[in-house]
C-alpha cells in the first residue's frame, strides 16, 4: 500500500470518528447545516469537539518541534573519529610517498590547496 493511501485511510478514519463524536454529543444536529451547528455551539464540550482537528494539528506541531529540538541537541558527534582520521591521513600520505605515488612536495601542495 502506498504511503499516500495509508495517510488517506488514517485521515478518513479520524474524520469518521470526529463526525461520530459530534453526532453523539449533539454538537452536530442533522436538521441544521454544518455552519449553523458550528456557530450555534455554546457548550464547552461541543466547542472542544469542533476544535478537535485544530487541537490535533497544534499538538502534532508541538510534538514535531520538541522532537526536532531534542534530536538536534543530542545529535551524535564523533570528534575522536575525526582525530583518528587526521592521524590515518598523515600515515597514509607517508606510505604513498614511500610507494612513489606522490612526492613530498606534491603532498604539501595538495594539502595546502
Amino acid at each position, binding site marked *: 500500500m502506498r504511503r499516500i493511501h495509508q495517510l488517506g485511510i488514517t485521515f478518513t478514519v479520524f474524520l469518521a470518528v470526529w463526525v461520530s463524536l459530534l453526532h453523539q454529543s449533539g454538537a452536530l444536529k442533522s436538521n441544521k447545516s454544518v455552519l449553523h451547528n458550528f456557530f450555534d455551539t455554546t457548550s464547552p464540550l461541543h466547542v472542544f469537539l469542533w476544535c478537535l482537528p485544530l487541537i490535533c494539528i497544534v499538538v502534532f506541531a508541538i510534538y514535531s518541534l520538541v522532537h526536532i529540538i531534542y534530536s538536534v541537541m543530542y545529535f551524535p558527534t564523533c570528534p575522536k573519529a575525526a582525530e583518528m582520521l587526521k592521524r590515518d591521513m598523515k600515515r*597514509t600520505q607517508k606510505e604513498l610517498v614511500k610507494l612513489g605515488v606522490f612526492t613530498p612536495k606534491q603532498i604539501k601542495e595538495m594539502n595546502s590547496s
Partner: protein
Amino acid sequence: TTTTTTTKTKKKINGRDIEYSIIIPTYNEQLNIAMLFTLIVEAMEKEIKDRNKNISYEVIVVDDNSQDQTQHVIRKLQKIEKYKDILCLKPRKGKLGLGSAYIHGLHFARGQFVIIMDADLSHNPKAIPEFIRKQEEGDYDVVTGTRYLASPSFSSSFRINNSSNKANKNKKEECGVYGWDTRRKLTSRVANYLAHILLNPGVSDLTGSFRLYRKSTFQALVNTMQSVGYVFQMEIIVRAKKGGFKVAEVPISFVDRVYGSSKLGASEIIGYLSGLVRLFFSV
C-alpha cells in the same frame, strides 16, 4: 532493462571468486582517493587476518573526467604489484551524475555484493567489515550506514531494533557526524523528519551514501531510479524496503571535511522538497 555486456576476463582474484566490489565515484579527488584506497586495503586485510578468512574484493573507481591528477594517481597505484588485481579505473567523459556513476560501476562489478561510498574520506573504510558482518548476520539484501542511530531517539518509532542499539554500545568506534554546525544539524533533522512523515521508510538515515547492496538487489533497484542527488539515495532505500528486500543499518562516523565549501543553498533545499513530494506520490 538491459545491461551492457562487458568482457570479464578475470572473474577471480588469486583463484577466488570476488565477493565485494567497492564502487567509488570521483571528481577531482587526487589525494583523497589514494588515501581512501590505502585505508580500504588496510581495513580489508585486517578483517581477513582477524577472521582468518579469505575475503576477495575489488575497488572500482568511476572518474568523471577529473581536471586534476586523479586518474594519473590511480594508474600509478595500479602499477604497484599488491594493488594491481584489486584496483580498477572506469572513467567517464564528464560529470554525469551519481546514479549513473553507480550504474556504470555496476557494469564492471564482479562481486556478489556492491559497496558504495564517497571518495572524500567522509566515510571511514574501517566500517566496511562491519557492513560485511551485518550482512552475514541476517543475510540482508541492503546494509546502510546511519549517522543518526547513535543518538537517543525521542520516539521509539524511529529506533530500528534493540540488537542494533546493543551493537552500537559495544562499538569501539565513535558514530555520528563531525564538522556540522547547528544550522546544518537542524537542516538535516528537519529534512529527515519530513521524509519520515511522508515516506515512513523504516530506516533512520535516508540520505546516506555509504551502503552495501547485494548486487542483484542493486541492479533491480538502480535502473528504476528517477531521482538525483540526496533524493536518489532516499528513493533507492525506500524502494528497497517497499520491495520486500531485507534492510539493516550500521552506525557510522561521518567526518564532513567539505561542509565549509559546499553549503546547502535554496536550490538544493527546493530540489530536495520537490523530490520528496514526488516520492510521496509514487512510492
